[in-house]
């Protein structure tokens, strides 16, 4: 086990480190140990919304075996889970409940948006009843495309998430500095959810064809 040397205060080259390890001394950072342990033991939430959930379940079976990556402990309660796999179509009726479950999860917590529907609404994007992506209300760490993604893709997204966890800095990461992150739960109206997206989390893509004068005005006032 070699540790990445990213600390500004301790300068230690790899040969010195290897010599120390041969002598039975391991030099590391608390960040590395924390992240290494966390990344190897992610506890997903038992939570499925549509057909993608079947693939997520398949990734936990003996054939694909998500426990090789330390994530086999699917927890039935959001209070005990730290990974939410949004697996499937998020209907507008379901979206407030998804945000509410996210709010109940303790820190640190991560989100994988699994499948085309959870990412953007997918084939139902232009429908009246499907949310156009769960990232409108909660921050998403890994986008896992597919319709539905294969179990191998689920495992790869977990690998990506573990890579992301390994880069976390305990002193500055919002998971450790801001307390439990909670986002406002949208409410039902006659046609849509209110608000249609959380501007703190997501902004619609800017239209480059819109006349530039509006943007200039916006900059002038800001």
């Amino acid at each position: 086990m070699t540790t990445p040397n990213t600390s500004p205060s301790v300068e230690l080259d790899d040969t010195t480190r290897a010599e120390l390890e041969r002598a039975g001394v391991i030099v590391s950072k608390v960040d590395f140990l924390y992240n290494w342990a966390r990344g190897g033991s992610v506890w997903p939430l038992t939570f499925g919304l549509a057909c993608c959930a079947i693939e997520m379940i398949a990734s936990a079976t003996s054939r694909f075996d998500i426990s090789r990556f330390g994530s086999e402990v699917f927890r039935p309660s959001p209070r005990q889970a730290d990974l939410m796999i949004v697996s499937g179509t998020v209907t507008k009726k379901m979206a407030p409940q998804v945000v509410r479950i996210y709010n109940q999860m303790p820190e640190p917590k991560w989100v994988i948006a699994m499948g085309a529907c959870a990412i953007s609404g997918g084939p139902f994007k232009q429908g009246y009843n499907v949310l156009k992506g769960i990232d409108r209300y909660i921050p998403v760490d890994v986008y896992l495309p597919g319709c539905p993604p294969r179990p191998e893709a689920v495992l790869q997204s977990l690998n990506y998430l573990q890579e992301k966890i390994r880069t976390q800095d305990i002193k500055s990461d919002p998971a450790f500095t801001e307390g439990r992150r909670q986002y406002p739960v949208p409410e039902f109206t006659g046609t849509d959810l209110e608000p249609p997206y959380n501007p703190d989390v997501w902004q619609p893509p800017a239209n480059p064809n819109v006349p530039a004068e509006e943007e200039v005005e916006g900059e002038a006032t800001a």
Partner: protein
Amino acid sequence: MSEAIPHDPVLQQFPEVEWDEEFGTLIVPATKATEVAIWLRDNHAFRLDYCSNVTGIDYLDREFKEKVKNEEGKTETIIHKDPARMEVAYHLYSMEKRTGPLVMKQRTTREKPEAQSLTPVWRSCELQEREIYDLFGINFTGHPDQRRILMWDEFEGHPMRKDYVEPFDYEWEPTPHDEILEKHQKGKVIF
């Protein structure tokens, strides 16, 4: 479940009931539906004790032309009129006799869609009639618990009706196609 169930006894028993040859369904006026349903369920010749499926159908006013050769050999165009209406179709089976399906339709108007709930006759209709109420806006009199089932309670309108206008929630995207492209070309951006 192979042979078609003979429908003539129903027509003899209830003169209001019609037989639709095109679709092979019984057309029952909404006011007589419960009576016919109970008779179909309890009559020993039918014993239709299982309702497997309930569906709503919405028809707009429609005209279509048909070209027919008359006796002199000339072609005439006949204009058929298909009036606007709403229907609720019930697919009925008999578990006892192992027969079915017999399709029975309640017919009602688009302006004031009212139908009789057949939940008191077949319990399996309950959730499906709620769905039809939710998506088509057909009122089921006598339904024990008629409220929305798929959409949220605050939702306005009935989305499966053909005159439903979905909310305009277009937003710009980098690679538009199909409907989004049409809206894109109109250049309307709401957010």
